């Protein structure tokens, strides 16, 4: 530090070497960080141990590899309820409804949790509530809802409607907080009524953000809907996990193939729509 002061007080422009000498040296910060990371890794490495393959591990790995390379083509183009297309369609239907309902339910919650609009205590209570929804894994929500609706696709819809609220609210709130209020003032100045202020001042600012959020969440929900099936909440996951437990690897291959293809298509579309929305 003293050396740096010296250099800066010379009163002449510094040479390259001098500036290089005076570069900030935070070696002790780096050492500390590395030590902490190493300690954490050592601590976590203590339980996670590689204990070798399971008794049939290698055969199973071969089976999975084989199945992925040679998917069951008859299943891929089978149009009954067993077939890949129907299962994918159902998964997508779950995600569509779940996202839409979640997106609608999130609107009142996000306004209530935004401390620019409601008093701070109310906003705090609602944001804790949203955090709670977000932390409970969707699988748990599904397992609880199954007790209500029974194991079917409807359970998946209800689960996703609830789970989606958490993240959608979080992003809605940022959109609401980013509203440019000066526009409202100028609308006021030009004599607009309350309804006109909402229609021309607020909605154009938040609607693209909201739609973009919903599309983003749809992406996530698609992925989620495939796993919800594992607990019996409809969608392709149920069929997939059944095939995995009964080691029908070529069927697993075709389900995964269909899933990956659909997911990639959905992702491409959603990215494109969202970039269009962002550019206006």
């Amino acid at each position: 530090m003293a050396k740096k002061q010296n250099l800066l007080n010379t009163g002449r422009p510094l040479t390259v070497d001098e500036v290089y000498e005076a570069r900030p040296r935070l070696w002790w910060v780096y050492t500390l960080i590395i030590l902490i990371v190493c300690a954490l890794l050592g601590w976590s490495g203590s339980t996670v141990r590689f204990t070798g393959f399971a008794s049939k591990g290698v055969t199973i790995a071969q089976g999975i590899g084989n199945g992925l390379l040679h998917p069951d083509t008859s299943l891929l183009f089978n149009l009954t309820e067993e077939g890949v297309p129907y299962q994918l369609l159902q998964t997508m239907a779950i995600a569509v409804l779940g996202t839409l309902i979640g997106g609608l339910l999130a609107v009142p919650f996000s306004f209530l949790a935004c401390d620019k609009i409601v008093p701070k205590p109310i906003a705090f209570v609602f944001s804790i509530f949203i955090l709670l929804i977000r932390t409970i894994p969707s699988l748990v929500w599904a397992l609880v809802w199954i007790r209500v609706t029974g194991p079917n696709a409807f359970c998946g819809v209800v689960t996703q409607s609830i789970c989606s609220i958490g993240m959608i609210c979080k992003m809605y709130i940022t959109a609401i907080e980013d509203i440019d209020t000066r526009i409202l003032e100028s609308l006021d100045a030009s004599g607009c009524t309350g309804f006109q202020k909402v229609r021309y001042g607020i909605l154009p600012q938040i609607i693209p953000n909201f739609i973009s959020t919903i599309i983003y969440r749809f992406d996530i929900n698609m992925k989620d809907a495939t796993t919800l099936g594992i607990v019996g909440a409809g969608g392709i996951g149920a069929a997939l996990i059944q095939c995995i437990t009964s080691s029908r690897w070529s069927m697993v291959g075709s389900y995964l193939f269909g899933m990956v293809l659909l997911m990639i298509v959905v992702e491409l579309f959603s990215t494109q729509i969202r970039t269009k929305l962002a550019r206006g």
Partner: protein
Amino acid sequence: MKQQSRSSLLTLVLLTLFGIICVLLSMDRVSAVIFTLLTIAAALLSLRTHTYTLSNGKQITQPGSRTLLIAIVLVDVVLASGRLTGFDLSIIAKRGNQFFVILGKIFHPDFGYFEKVVNPLLDTIKMSILGSFIGATLALPISVLASTNIDKSKGIVWFLRILLMVVRTLPTLVIAKFAALIFGLGTFAGTVAIIVFTFGVVSKMMYESIETIDMGAFEAVESFGGTKFQSFWAACMPQILPTYLSYCLYALEMNIRAAAILGYVGAGGIGLLMDERIGWRDYNGLGMVLLALFVVVVLIEQLSQYLRRKLS
């Protein structure tokens, strides 16, 4: 101008066809006909243009609004999805109170159960820390190779990108199930699943941000005779390191949440307990598990958000 109108016409036709397919797939004959006609009518309405004559005599055509068509297609999609999933609100109305009974029990956690929660919870945290670290470390070189501004060979870039896309689309639970079958039940399988998941996510975010960095410094070092690696290390590393670290922390945040459910397929951690509690209908115990998870997630999220703010 003409090309633009042609592409918008194509979107319109595709939208209409999509709506009609949805309707035909899912409804009985009468409503299918009604909704098909509605969709076509909306499409035709959106083709109608308005022509205005300005005060200087110039004529301006305003393209038709597509809002109505989009709304109708959305209705088609929602109705079709409702049919496919067996959407029935009366079930909720009839048995919805069941849910609140369970929720009430969850909100009265059984604190005596805490001792049994601690170890699986620590396992979950350990799995996610180790998995995040290894996954993120693997992601760094791959993401450099997958970004177009540094890696000039198109073949490698596209191969890696498609690979990453496939890795990202595989659900973590399925990977965990595979890992549990191959490596045996336990935390190792969970760690493998988290490594794969982190690798996919961090790589994607990284190559996207590597592509936005300023390449001037890189070219300067290269022009002084640095090798590609040297120039990358000296010029690009300082630019991407803060972003990289913040993505790693973000991945850790997500992984704690993801790791919590891996136990469901036997990959270790707290998910096993949740499954067990729900199976036994011990919702007070489940409440305790969820409370512990909630506290840990919030703590780690706060810590990581604090660190990420420092980084940026």
